[in-house]
């Protein structure tokens, strides 16, 4: 009984302190609130975390911001919007952070973005790919770093149109990202290549693809080419079944994101050669800014960067650049600073567009190849995000007026 009683007493004591502990007064530091679904998407988010930790180190080593040390308060949002909003509230009201950043899944990102609007806080969305976060549901307080679903689709479409294939089959994970990718691809390709036909569509549930059946259904539809937005475990299952059943023989395949190390590396000797993908060929990029990032990352973590690392690093650097340019942590001043902000990233110069708060960070477009039993990207080029966005008039029509 004494153990139980001690446990109970301890719990009560802990609860009391947790409930009533006010925000610790922090003089001389700038606090940034970071939140992500670390336990739900660890394959992407562990490298992401290493990325922003590296950036934080660099910022503080060079003297911090506005003469103050920078501190990141990081939280797990448990992968659902309800908890994310609560965690955001904790960061804002108890930790007094100057701005929020992070998020992976689109629905979580949208919820936090709306929270930011309500609480009048700056929010830099790192990873959510949904187009809505800067367009239909965009708001004054939200900026987004990664190239969106639409942009990445637009990067692949020119290559697809060049092949001039008539009959296309499409496979996508059945949720907003896959649906938007599919809709975007159909619209953009049909505009470039009139008369193109989309003859089959497969929409497996996210994480639950019945790969054998899906591959067979696609073979039976006899398409000339395939567009896919699968990733993670679904992609690996699809590739293995497709290889075994000969789906990819003589058929060009376009797959969003499949060149990202997070999704490419697990494929190993199963890597389907010749696929057109967007991704991140980290070992072949020879620009000085990337070499410097690569060396610093390896020195700190003794590991190679994934795309998540770049996203984490650049998100942190974006927050720093906004504060530096604003000369203050006042929300409105930081927003003004971010609009049109130009900065360096490991992938080159990027700009946060004033019109829709989307950064012009791009992606690498290339083809997959098999080398020494591992997947690599070849024939790649950097597609600057700035070139793959709709016209200003279209953006204005989509985005709610402020």
């Amino acid at each position, binding site marked *: 009984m004494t153990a139980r009683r001690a446990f109970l007493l301890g719990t009560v004591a802990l609860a009391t302190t947790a409930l009533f502990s006010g925000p610790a007064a922090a003089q001389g530091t700038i606090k940034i609130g970071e939140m992500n679904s670390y336990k739900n998407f660890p394959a992407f988010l562990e490298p992401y975390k290493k990325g922003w930790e590296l950036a934080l180190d660099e910022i503080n080593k060079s003297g911090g911001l506005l003469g103050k040390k920078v501190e990141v308060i990081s939280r797990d949002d448990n992968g659902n919007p309800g908890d994310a909003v*609560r965690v955001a509230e904790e960061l804002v009201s108890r930790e007094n952070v100057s701005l929020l950043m992070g998020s992976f899944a689109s629905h979580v990102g949208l919820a936090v973005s709306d929270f930011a609007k309500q609480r009048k806080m700056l929010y830099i969305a790192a990873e959510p790919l949904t187009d809505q976060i800067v367009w239909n549901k965009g708001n004054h307080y939200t900026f987004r770093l990664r190239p969106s679903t639409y942009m990445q689709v637009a990067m692949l479409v020119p290559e697809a149109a060049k092949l001039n294939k008539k009959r296309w089959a499409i496979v996508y994970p059945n949720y907003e990202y896959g649906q938007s990718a599919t809709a975007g691809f159909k619209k953009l390709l049909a505009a470039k290549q009139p008369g193109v036909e989309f003859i089959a569509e497969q*929409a497996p549930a996210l994480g639950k693809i019945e790969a054998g059946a899906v591959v067979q259904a696609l073979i039976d539809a006899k398409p000339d080419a395939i567009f896919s937005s699968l990733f993670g475990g679904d992609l690996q299952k699809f590739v293995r079944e497709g290889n075994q059943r000969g789906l990819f023989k003589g058929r060009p395949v376009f797959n969003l994101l499949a060149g990202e190390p997070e999704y490419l590396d*697990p494929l190993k000797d199963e890597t389907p050669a010749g696929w057109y993908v967007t991704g991140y060929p980290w070992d072949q990029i020879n620009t000085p800014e990337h070499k410097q990032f690569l060396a610093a990352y390896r020195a700190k973590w003794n590991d190679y960067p994934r795309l998540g690392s770049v996203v984490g690093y650049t998100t942190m650097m974006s927050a720093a650049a906004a504060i530096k340019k604003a000369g203050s942590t006042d929300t409105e001043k930081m927003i003004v600073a971010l609009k049109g902000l130009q900065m360096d990233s490991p992938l080159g110069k990027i700009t946060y567009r004033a019109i829709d708060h989307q950064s012009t960070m791009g992606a690498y477009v290339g083809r997959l190849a098999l080398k020494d039993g591992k997947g690599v990207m070849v024939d790649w080029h950097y597609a600057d995000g700035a070139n793959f966005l709709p016209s200003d008039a279209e953006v204005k029509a989509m985005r709610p007026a402020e």
Partner: protein
Amino acid sequence: MSLSAIFIQLLNGLASASSLFLVAAGLSLIFGVTRIVNFAHGSLYMLGIYTAYSLVQVFDGSVLGFWGGVLLAGLIVAVFGALVERLLLRRLYHAPELLQLLATFALVLIIRDFVLWAWGPEDLLGPRAPGLRGAVAIAGRQFPEYDLFLIVLGPVVLGLLWLLLTRTRWGTLVRAATEDREMAGALGVNQAWLFTSVFALGSFLAGLGGAIQIPREPAVLTMDLTILSDVFVVVVVGGMGSIPGAFLAAVIIGVLKAMCIGIGNVSAFGIDFSFSKLTLVVEFIVMAVVLVIRPWGLFGRQQGIPRGAAAVEPPLYLPSPALLKALAFGLLVLLLLPLVSDRYTLVLLTDILVFALFAVSLHFIMGPAGMHSFGHAAYFGLGAYAAALLFKQALPMELALALAPFAAGLGALAFGWFCVRLSGVYLAMLTLAFAQIAWSVVYQWDAFTGGSNGLVGVWPAQWLASKTTFYYLALALCAGGTLILWRIVYSPFGYALRAGRDSPLRADAIGIDVRRQQWLGFALAGVFAGLAGAVYAFSKGSISPDTLSITRSVDGLVMVLMGGIQTLTGAVAGAAAFTWLQDTISRQTEFWRALLGGIILFLVLAFPQGIAGFIRERWEARSGRSDL
């Protein structure tokens, strides 16, 4: 589809049915004998595939190494399962029912973090099976050799299990225990040993079911829960405890999914319908249909109520003056708290209030009404979505909040009509099926519900915008709802519900329409869950399909069980403890899930009667009275 295409899709369905059958057979065996609803079964499967991946790497891809690795992985998981049974579950056989479920839920959390720690976050795609790397031509198509092997493996394992269960002494004992556990015990069967061996065999099948998947799918960290719901569906559709039933159900579901994919998009009468999208929910539709037609699954039989495993639930006494005083004092503290607390405390307390009402409404049907629900989040989510959608139709926020619970109540009335016709685990699984069907509709219906992204901009009216005012609103509605539900427990309706739970026959004989009472109770619980959901929606400002997911339903179960299912106030204590723990722990350590699991395990072992149950026991010991 051409005939040959149908044939190939049939083979595809059979191939994926095999692994599902192995895992399901294990779960079915364990449930049949021990009556444990083993939430950790999916985790055993996950351990199987990760272990097999590592062993195959170590043995370096030779034929013997591959198959040896697969088999060894199954055996390792079997040993692990036996240890879990001996060290953990054995201590809980005399605890109130469903408590083992809470313990296995804690294991899910711990095992997942263990796997992340041991194998890292990256997906691990294993090698193809040596000797079965290629494909053979069938009906003009390339068909993987390994899939053919799987098609054969399923029936072989079925046959072996059948021989084991019908031709060996051990099998006879297992069947006897499945039929009547106490009688088997009375006749001198060593139950301890039997339970351990059954658990080991069940775990072996789960581990093997995972291990044989390595040539087909990568090991990923979310596969434990992905497979768990599928396996439960298979076991329940087949009839719990029936191995041939599980096989048939696995085949039906595997083949149906393959056929849906094969059919693809169809347009008739100008309407496009995508059968491939139906794979999201097809297994739950099958389960709902089967359970409505055959309440104990395809091959299942009505199960006797296990006698004497746990203490019979004592009648609920009227709350004592001391308890009423304590409750009034608690309420007073909650009323005065905003004077001294910071903003975030109010936000956290609002969450706790919402989940307390949610848990109390779940306890209302689980405790006094005796109907276990695995899908209670459906009504929470319906309330939340109704509130958000009405609000988006330009209804005033107050009106949306007032109407939403009734939308949830209507949903509960419709689903409940089917559910109250069943009992036990079957009832629980039918509630889960309906919840999943509701979830998939919300998830898919982009134009109306916002699809997977949900709806944003659902903020309270101006006068409620301050966190303090909203906290008082939440306190009024949630505490009020809780008190009403508690009051109902002591009304004639509440007594009728409890009579129906404790002795349906006698209740029927004195003129109580048990089924109707249960139906109304179910709907009433739905109304209050919907109220909690509506408050939740406005407290968050956004709403997404997560609110009616399995995870939310399981959270509700965990809250009720942690608090103590046999006490009235337990659900509130459980909701407060769980929500607060999650909030606090996730800040402390990267492996917070494992820590949360560890704390739940500790609570289960130290206070099997739940937090409130423990306090009641202490109180009784001190005053010789029983009244919490």
